[in-house]
């Protein structure tokens, strides 16, 4: 089918036509919101007053955030959860990937799918699932702990001391498979001859893992840890749903992202919440940079 010349797209303009739908959306829903949020961080504004109620307040929002106890507490909660869920993810995913890589061939895809399943399941379904499993008097987890280890029932979701480990566990459970898949993909690129030679030299399996596997997948470890840092610091859905959107007993599970949400939508302080989001962005950038640095210096030393 030939279009009339007027409707035919000239090769010169074609790329612009092809990218414009994407770029328009990207501008409206990607770039503009960012700029607007930066602008908002310097304004005092309650949405109920309409756009006219906006007032320039300089750095007051940032000053408020830095003096706000809840801001710091939520940041500590976030870091706690990021470390308690992130570190075990990698410590388990690394040997797990090694085991799958070594022992599974025909069943490999099935095994990977099982470990990956939590990652593609909706957080709401997961949170609802674990909400009942963690229930104090009748939850499966307490029942199992009592049955097998004789432990007393723990108030996982209703005490400030226990809700963080419970949430960290859920996050760990959800993402450990994703990391395993990353490491498995990297292990498949290590040449088998390296292991054969090491075996001939009498190197133990542990030594092979430490001296061949780990250095071989180092870039992937860096990538996986970076994703965990970025993802852990924006943790929102699990704590939000498990605490009914409030942050839990004594706000012990209120992460920075949950606090941000509450500051804006519960307390109607959009300017303050925007300022906090930029402060948190700096924290994320800083920690990502430190991760990068840690990996680089150790490579230099090795």
């Amino acid at each position: 089918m030939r279009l009339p010349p007027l409707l035919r797209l000239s090769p010169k303009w074609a790329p612009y036509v092809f990218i414009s739908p994407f770029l328009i959306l990207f501008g409206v829903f990607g770039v503009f919101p960012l700029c607007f949020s930066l602008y908002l961080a310097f304004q005092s504004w309650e949405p109920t007053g309409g756009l006219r109620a906006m007032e320039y307040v300089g750095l007051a929002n940032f000053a408020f955030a830095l003096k706000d106890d809840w801001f710091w507490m939520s940041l500590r909660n976030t870091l706690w959860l990021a470390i308690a869920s992130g570190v075990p993810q990698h410590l388990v995913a690394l040997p797990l990937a090694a085991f799958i890589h070594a022992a599974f061939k025909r069943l490999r895809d099935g095994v990977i799918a099982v470990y990956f399943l939590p990652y593609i399941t909706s957080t709401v379904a997961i949170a609802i699932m674990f909400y009942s499993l963690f229930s104090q008097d009748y939850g499966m987890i307490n029942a199992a702990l009592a049955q097998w280890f004789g432990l007393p029932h723990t108030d996982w979701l209703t005490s400030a001391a226990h809700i963080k480990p419970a949430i960290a566990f859920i996050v760990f459970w959800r993402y450990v498979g994703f990391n395993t898949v990353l490491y498995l993909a990297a292990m498949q690129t290590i040449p088998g001859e390296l292991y054969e030679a090491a075996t001939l030299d009498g190197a133990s399996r542990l030594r092979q893992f430490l001296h061949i596997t780990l250095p071989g997948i180092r870039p992937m470890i860096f990538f996986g840890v970076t994703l965990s840092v970025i993802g852990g610091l924006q943790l929102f859905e699990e704590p939000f749903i498990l605490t009914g959107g409030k942050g839990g007993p004594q706000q012990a599970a209120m992460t920075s992202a949950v606090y941000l949400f509450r500051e804006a939508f519960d307390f109607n302080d959009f300017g303050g919440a925007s300022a906090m989001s930029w402060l948190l962005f700096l924290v994320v950038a800083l920690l990502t940079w430190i991760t990068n640095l840690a990996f680089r210096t150790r490579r230099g030393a090795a």
Partner: protein
Amino acid sequence: MSGAAGLPASVGKAGVGARAARWTAYAIVGVGALFMLAPFWFMFVFATHSRSEIFNLPPPLWFGDDLAANFRLLTERIPFWRNLGWSLYVALMSTALTLLFCSMAGYAFALMEFRFKKALFGLVMATMLLPSFMNMIPMFMIMDALGWIDQQRALYVPGAASAFGIFLMRQFAQSSVPRELVESARMDGCGEFSIYWRIVLPLMKPALGTLALITFITSWNNFINPLIVMRSLPNYTLPLALRSLQSTLNTEWGALMCGSAIATIPLIVLFAITSRQLIAGLTAGAVK
């Protein structure tokens, strides 16, 4: 056998130690797999028990016979089919728009020359690293300004500008759409749209499939965007509707589990069929 990590490549050469090591690996990986599946098992089991049975000691481990009652309760508490329909509608619209826009732009970024190409692509990629909470507040305000609050288009339109989608499409177009093919078609007088529609798109099918899966699942599971923009229960997508059940004082756990199970089953089926492709796509950024 090659590339055994952690265990020696000579596992196959018998040896009691090697066999023991192999069985240890089976046992550890197997127990771990049960650990991953157990919560799903309980979700399905609890979906068939009444609230009082779920909170028995010991809790039920096998299916009961209250599935129908739970489902009835679920449909009484929330407009379940409507919510399910909205979830499906939003996920399909989101997938269609994302595929169209990202494939067009990805093709242009991979195989065409235009001004500011590198800078634009860099900008798009940079936003992929931005934490999602940066978007929360301005997104609400834009939707408010557009009058899109409580409307489904607020859920599927913004997502179509997916940085990940562009990345995937560009990578794939670069590696599997031959530049010469496009150029010779142009020489033969083929219009730009027909080049895209009849030559490029068919060649991109595998990547389009992957992007479709990822977009559909992401939209189906999405919680935070509906939370920010949707206001009324009849307009909710399923995850939000299910959560609204939980916030009432006497949570009907059986019904809630039933709803969660129904929301999860399509994903499990989809995943069972496509796990290879899906996992490869989701980790594409890492491997390349």
